[in-house]
């Protein structure tokens, strides 16, 4: 990708004559008009009916979430992500039909949602399986891995989730920033080693986030195209940050040496990228905690803390030589760490796989943009850049460190 801003007027054929522009508009619209005609033919004459004959309806219901607001009460949140309306005929919990109520119609239209409430004596700490039976006898299952009362948005739980976010997001990043005095005094050669190490950390983090986004995309109802959301989110955040960075450097040309302001800008960009990533991570942790999918023991918190401490290093490395005021460091720590708290709130109280996929993908794209940013900065300062032997070693080491700390996070 080129980060050279285009000079105005350089695009070929960008100045059509006035008389030709009308014709050009027409040429642009012609395919659209034809498409409209095709749609009209299909809607009114239905030539596709020959393809459809005799097939049973394709039904696709997704249980996005099962909440347990109080003992004896269960709520099933359903989305119809299939091509046709689906009628929920019966609800089974743990292989038993169960009386229930649906808010609204039993027939859920395409892309429609419904909430099913039932009085079921769920058992704290044990798994339960929920199955919806459609009018055609198809079944759609969802497992509550560990039943635990779903938190309500109360002050107490906002507090608990905030604490969770602080533990796994804010504190580790701030601790990581404390590498600043150490990095301040190393030579440029070794600074580049640590920058490469940072890149290693981030590449690992980015790949991990991308993988998580794709995993979550798997449970997104088909119509909402989980993988499409990942591409949109990741590429979107990458390009947005890229545009932001280009606009900032735009006036000076790509090969100009960085000054302290540039490097501070890059550090802020990294903080922003990591913040976006931590938003997705917080969301995943918050929802898993709320749904009882992970028991958040102190071991896991320690794991996340170790894992995320490295993020502080990534922020501080580019500006280490510049001795920026402490307020900048604190601000960057906040930008990187605080979104974790927002993420745990969103995930804890209103989890949806669609939002989670998008957030995780946005985080992944942001992280990878940050990688690009640091690599470009290094190349400007040292021609061999990332591929100088010492730097390559740093890169590999960074990924290894991440691999090691990630071992602690596996719940």
């Amino acid at each position, binding site marked *: 990708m080129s980060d050279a801003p285009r000079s105005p007027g350089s695009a070929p054929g960008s100045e059509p004559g006035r008389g030709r522009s009308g014709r050009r508009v027409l040429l642009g619209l012609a395919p659209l008009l034809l498409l409209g005609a095709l749609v009209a033919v299909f809607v009114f004459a239905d030539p596709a009916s020959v393809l459809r004959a005799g097939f049973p309806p394709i039904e696709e219901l997704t249980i996005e979430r099962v909440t347990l607001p109080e003992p004896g*009460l269960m709520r099933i949140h359903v989305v119809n992500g299939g091509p046709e309306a689906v*009628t929920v005929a*019966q609800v089974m919990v743990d292989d038993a039909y169960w009386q229930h*109520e649906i808010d609204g119609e039993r027939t859920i239209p395409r892309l429609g949602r419904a909430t099913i409430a039932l009085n079921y004596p769920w058992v704290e700490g044990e798994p339960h399986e929920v199955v919806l039976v459609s009018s055609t006898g198809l079944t759609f299952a969802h497992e509550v891995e560990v039943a635990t009362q779903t938190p309500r948005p109360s002050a107490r739980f906002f507090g608990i989730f905030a604490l969770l976010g602080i533990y796994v997001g804010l504190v580790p990043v701030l601790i990581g920033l404390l590498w600043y005095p150490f990095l301040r005094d190393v030579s440029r050669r070794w600074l580049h080693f640590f920058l490469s190490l940072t890149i290693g950390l981030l590449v690992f983090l980015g790949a991990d986030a991308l993988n998580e986004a794709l995993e979550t995309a798997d449970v997104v109802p088909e119509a909402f195209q989980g993988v499409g959301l990942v591409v949109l989110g990741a590429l979107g955040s990458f390009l947005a940050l890229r545009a932001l960075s280009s606009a900032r450097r735009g006036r000076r040309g790509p090969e100009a040496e960085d000054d302290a302001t540039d490097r501070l800008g890059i550090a802020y960009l990294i903080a922003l990228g990591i913040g976006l990533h931590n938003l997705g991570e917080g969301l995943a942790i918050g929802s898993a905690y709320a749904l009882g999918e992970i028991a958040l023991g102190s071991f896991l918190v320690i794991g996340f803390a170790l894992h995320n401490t490295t993020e502080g290093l990534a922020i501080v490395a580019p500006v280490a030589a510049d001795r920026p005021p402490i307020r900048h460091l604190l601000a960057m720590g906040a930008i990187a760490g605080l979104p974790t708290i927002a993420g745990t709130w969103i995930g804890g109280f209103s989890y949806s796989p669609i939002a989670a996929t998008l957030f995780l993908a946005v985080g992944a794209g942001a992280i990878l943009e940050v990688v690009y940013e640091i690599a470009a900065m290094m190349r400007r300062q040292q021609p061999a850049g990332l591929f100088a032997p010492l730097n390559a070693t740093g890169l590999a080491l960074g990924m290894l460190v991440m691999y090691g700390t990630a071992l602690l996070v596996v719940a």
Partner: protein
Amino acid sequence: MMGPKTMSRRDWLKLGGVGVAGLSGTSVLALARRGGAAAALEHAGVQEAIHSPTELAQLRMGVFGDHPPADGFDPDAFLFDFDYGDVSRDEAGRTVREYEIVAVDREIEVAPGVWFPAWTYNGRVPGPTLRCTEGDLLRIRFSNAGSHPHTIHFHGTHPPAMDGVFPIVEPGERFTYEFPAKPFGVHPYHCHAIPLKRHIHKGLYGTLIVDPPGGRSPARELVMVMNGFDTNFDGENEVYAVNTAAFYYQTHPIRVGVGEPVRIYLVNLTEFDPINSLHLHAGMFRYYRTGTRPDQYELTDTIMLCQGERGIVELELENPGLHMVHAHQSEFAELGWMSFIDAVPHLAAEDGVPVHRYV
């Protein structure tokens, strides 16, 4: 939403009447308003005994919505619907019974709102209950109006050529099975075209009752076919029932008289699960395996039947009220094989139900 802990009985009865009934028509009150069930619940003291949503669930189990099936199948009538065939006599003076059975594809409603693409004998599942006396000549004219090859394989003693394995009756073709009925007892019949599992679980089965010469003692006689439906075709049943309609006899208890002799012809045609069972609450019954030996029975309240196994249950209920009857596999019970027999004092014989009339 309903909070079981915090609601008074009055509150939730109101809810039962307005909330749940308004949505689903399944509350006790709605239930009680209907003819048959009302009397049953009242005299059984059930309405008074219900104090909480948990107890309502206990009575009603879980199924949503109301019966009877919208496909026209009447589970109440099926209990007593014996088909004696067209009766004539041959030159030797032997009773000849002729039946018409047609295999047709048909959607049936196996639980409220759940439709199943069945293969049926005479448009319903189970197929007709054929009834005859040992030694009668049976002539069953079978025609296949379905989309796949079918047969009718009868259990019992007969020439192998009449066994319903060969010939396979292709769609549009006919075949007449002819054999003398024996031995007396209760026997299943079912399609024997391959793949067997699919042909049976899609609904091609029924009951053949062969009475001993001179008949059995007078009793209120019922047919119960234990079956299941794999609605999503994953090789496991989603719905279990007796006589196809899941939970039907739970909300429409089977009425019998207190002390009245009751005889149940019980057949297990459940696919996939090796065994099914029947358990009677608050009473014991005499169980005659296969119904072939009137002098040999077991006194019990729980029996277990393999696929294709059958027998005769005889009982007299001593106390009035609702007697639960269900599979003792709790899973089957909670997936539909759940019912009540309601013992009513002084139930008139003409109350919809004949004491066994013998033709």
